[in-house]
């Protein structure tokens, strides 16, 4: 199957090193402490943050840091075929864990002992790269909630099909069975917090693909920066400053 045609154009008209269109909105869920919607092409994800608040389950309380919890759900209608079980299936549990660990690494949890921070991520529309979109949305939601963090966390995926490294795989490219590398970084500190891959890849090509995904993460970080700056200007304007 041809994923990159001889002129170097992918199935959805992009070039191999081109990301999908990004769009983000902050503060969409009024009742949450922080919330954001993040879109990467047709993948659309909403994240809401509740916290820091009192720990609900006393047995889980940590005396020296905040407890970070995360739930990832996909509704029935988000993928091409309607899913039967929206919550609690193994993929959702795994992704919840991945998002929690990634965000926990960047939140300054020692500043909020004996408290709980809940991150809820809901996929509205899935077209590949949901993991990355969820992490980006969670970062924005945490920033909106004013929770202290070491740095933003941004994430992007990359793959390797038809001997070409491809940035930001869509569902069609992802389901080709080729390698899918998801990278999450702290852009300012220039550190990697998440690295996942499936399928096989020779090591020298692996380095290229990871480098490509990291560039993608930096591009997302720039966009998130702009969105946050714009949001802060709006807040200043509304306060009459």
């Amino acid at each position, binding site marked *: 199957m041809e994923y990159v045609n001889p002129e170097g154009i992918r199935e959805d008209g992009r070039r191999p090193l081109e990301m999908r269109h990004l769009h983000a909105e902050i503060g969409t869920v*009024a*009742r949450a402490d922080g*919330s954001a919607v993040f879109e990467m092409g047709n993948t659309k994800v909403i994240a809401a943050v509740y916290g820091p608040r009192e720990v609900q389950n006393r047995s889980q309380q940590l005396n020296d840091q905040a407890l970070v919890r995360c*739930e990832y759900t996909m509704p*029935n209608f988000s993928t091409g075929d309607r899913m039967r079980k929206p919550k609690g299936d193994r993929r959702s549990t795994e992704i919840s864990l991945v998002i929690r660990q990634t965000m926990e690494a960047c939140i300054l949890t020692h500043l909020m002992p004996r408290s709980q921070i809940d991150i*809820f991520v*809901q996929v509205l*529309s899935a077209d590949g790269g949901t993991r990355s979109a969820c992490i980006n949305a969670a970062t924005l939601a945490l920033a909106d909630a004013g929770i202290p963090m070491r740095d933003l966390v941004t994430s992007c995926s990359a793959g390797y099909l038809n001997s070409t490294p491809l940035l930001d795989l869509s569902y069609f490219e992802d389901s080709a069975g080729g390698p899918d590398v998801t990278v999450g970084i702290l852009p300012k500190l220039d550190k990697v917090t998440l690295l996942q891959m499936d399928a096989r890849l020779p090591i020298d090509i692996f380095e290229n693909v990871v480098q490509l995904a990291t560039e993608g993460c930096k591009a997302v970080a720039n966009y998130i920066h702009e969105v946050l700056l714009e949001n802060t200007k709006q807040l200043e304007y509304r306060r009459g400053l």
Partner: protein
Amino acid sequence: MVGLSAGEKHFIQGGIAQDLRADGRKRLNYRPIYVETGVIPQADGSAKVKMGATEVIASVKLDLARPNPSQPGKGKVSLFVSCSATAGPMFEGRGSEELSAELSVALQRCLLGGKSGAGAAFDPSCLSIVDGKLCWDAYIDGLVVSADGNLLDALGAAIKAALTNTRVPVANVPAGASLDEDPDVDLSSQETTRIDTSGVPVIVTLTKVGRHYIVDATSEEESQMSSAVSVSINKERRICGLTKRGGAGLDPSIILDMISVASHVSEQLMNKLDSEIAAAEADEQDT
């Protein structure tokens, strides 16, 4: 959710008694309603409705299937609502099951009609492809993204908008094809038909606080309610469904009065929704 103090409760109840609610509305005023259609690209029809801080999304997906033998000329419609954890930590894990079930049943009662298929919001025979052999199954899914009261009205509006937004693909079955096994259905023509949603009712929920009824309660106002009646009314001012919630008993004359008030309010809501949906559809076609 933070509880209310005695002073706040008094403020809410007193305000409603004087026809001046906490956000400045009168008892029978809705919050500003905002409708956006086509929000889920993979669905055949979808819509997002915001009433104040309440935000819900509805999607309609169509799958090829065999029709019910008792109704060979109609497609099957199923409806299910779920509450996202983004609406609040109380909806995490299995916490949303009770509320989701309650909302699903109430909406099914208003929109799906009886076993014979009579009384449904729209005519399911528009989903039939080949009588008795092939039809579209419509799966209507509602998702509560943000909850600030009046979920039923918002979901009813979102489903109405999503059905209006739905494009049913025109399926060409080659003549003479055997339909007992999986037939080769030709969906390549990009033509679509629409569903006639002029008969879809709106749902108006009247919440009784003290001695007065309010429309479009916020969740703080709902916490002060003694009971609530949700009435589903269509364009011809006919009642399509009725649900009463809340433990307090109601005098029958009060229920009749609430129904007539709901009927009066429904006309305003129906017009507002129709114009919002038309505007949203026009917007979507422009982009």
